[in-house]
């Protein structure tokens, strides 16, 4: 396929460059808006080529934005704990399922798998988590519901363990007198690293981007993660706009600050993205094969 079809090449490049522009330009707009001078924003609105730039929004965030930084720290903490917990629970369960001789293996596989087919929906979960476990307005609300283990992770890990770790390794380890715990730690974890990293990347992203748990279970704004902080910021600004006569808008972060916080929320992702995108790509094609 070496340049024998110049027209196809041309079409492909034009289409893909246009597509890249469509994908990147909104992000560029977000960034430029965050460094636009506030009075320019009020007069001209958000713009790709603002008259005047200013870093005021960022200096506000890092000097006076204690609540913003707090929500940021919450999200970092939740992402770390949640991802570690998910990987531990999922890999231990997947290790069991990957043992062909484990009694009850069929039942346990179905036990995991059925959660992908059927779920009770929001109402019973909500009533249980708030009524029985009282997680409302605690950090557990951001960690426990829904994301701590997923059937998909378990199934993909199990398949990986079964296909990439030779059974002979287990046998020789057993002959050496290694316990199942040692086998898990010394064989499964090191050899399963590629799948653990891939699943970890997806789980970390899910925790970082999640705003539903905060929406359902957190009403105290001091307990918000960054996504819920952003959510509140934009819906409350709307509320202020609708009630424009109540002029408390001085207290609200201004237009540029809104975009600056949004940009801060995606910076970590944009930084790690070039390094992790191969995991995203392999993870997507893995997941596509199974659902």
């Amino acid at each position: 396929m070496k340049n024998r079809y110049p027209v196809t090449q041309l079409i492909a490049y034009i289409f893909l460059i246009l597509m890249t522009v469509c994908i990147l330009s909104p992000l560029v707009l977000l960034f430029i808006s965050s460094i636009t001078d506030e009075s320019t924003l009020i007069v001209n609105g958000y713009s790709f080529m603002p008259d005047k730039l200013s870093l005021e929004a960022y200096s506000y965030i890092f000097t006076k934005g204690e609540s913003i930084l707090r929500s940021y720290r919450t999200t970092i903490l939740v992402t770390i704990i949640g991802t570690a917990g998910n990987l531990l629970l999922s890999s231990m369960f997947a290790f069991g399922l990957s043992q062909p001789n484990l009694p009850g293996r069929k039942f346990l596989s179905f036990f995991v798998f059925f959660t992908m087919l059927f779920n009770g929906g929001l109402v019973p979960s909500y009533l249980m988590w708030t009524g029985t476990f009282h997680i409302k307005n605690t950090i557990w609300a951001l960690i426990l519901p829904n994301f701590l283990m997923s059937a998909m992770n378990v199934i993909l890990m199990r398949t990986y363990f079964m296909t990439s770790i030779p059974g002979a390794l287990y046998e020789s380890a057993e002959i050496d007198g290694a316990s199942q715990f040692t086998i898990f730690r010394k064989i499964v974890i090191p050899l399963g690293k590629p799948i653990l990293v891939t699943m970890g990347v997806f789980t970390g992203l899910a925790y970082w981007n999640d705003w539903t748990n905060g929406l359902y279970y957190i009403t105290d704004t001091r307990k918000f993660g960054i996504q819920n902080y952003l959510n509140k910021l934009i819906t409350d600004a709307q509320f202020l706009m609708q009630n424009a006569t109540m002029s408390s808008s001085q207290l609200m972060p201004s237009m540029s600050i809104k975009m600056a916080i949004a940009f801060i929320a995606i910076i970590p992702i944009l930084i790690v993205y070039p390094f992790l995108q191969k995991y995203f790509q392999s993870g997507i094609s893995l997941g596509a094969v199974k659902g």
Partner: protein
Amino acid sequence: MTKSEITVPATSGNRLLRQWRRVKKWWPVYLMMLPGAAYLIINNYIPMTGIVVAFKKYNVQDGIWGSRWVGLQNFEYLFTSKDAWIMTRNTLLYNLAFLVINNVLGILTAILITEVNRKRFRHFFQSMVLVPFVLSIVIISYIVFAFLSADGGILNHTILPALGLDEVDWYNSPRYWPFILVIVNAWKGVGYGSMIYIAGITGIDKGLYEAAELDGAGKIRQILNVTLPSLVPSIITLCMLSIGRIFYSDFGLFYQVPMNSGTLYSVTNVIDTQVYRMLITVGNIGMSSASGFYQSIVGFILVFMSNMLVRKISADNALF
């Protein structure tokens, strides 16, 4: 062990003992599986049983199990309201539109990316189209806001005036939202779909293209006669899986992106947003749980049936 089981007729006591020994050998493994199993029971199985709340008049003191049974009353309320029809219609039509548009664009993008002759650019485009996949829906709603908002949106302030058009009150004009939501969803999802199709295209035997070329087929012919037919199994599988999920939607897309604007409910309310609003905003647990039950049951039937079909087409891709 299995041999002795066949030749020596064991008493039931013996068999139990042997069974016990077998299980005992695995106890560390079971122990490692315990936390995961406990989590699934709490997070998934207990709420599954809690689905009966749809047939009850829930009150806080008595909890799910103690509350009074009311039969189908909640469903009567739900299905006599116009919400039931609107949310079902919206959920199904949006998902169908997403299915068609995202797959067509995904296939097109995948074909064009794999056509690019320089490896470096191929990788560049591949990582570019996947960028929206890593952004949260809250961030996406900010981007949409920067375009549409009344006080600073770039459409009303810059683009529409430049075209000589009047400003539009986007967040209060339902008729634009079917298009906005389809565009936003495509922006977010095309990269993901194209990754799957790129994997499919790279798996195609290169010999097929060479043979087509020898037969004098141009690029378009090759795409039509080799690439697309080879992708058919993946296309069918992906479509079936989406149809299995057709009763579920991306909550954030329909709740956060339109800013939960009340005037837009007729075109933005889907089953997921209905369940949430009835539960949290309105506090009508009966209505909410009935909608949730409806979604769970119909959703289960659809997932089940679509998987049976996928199994018929390509067993490897079936969930079970």
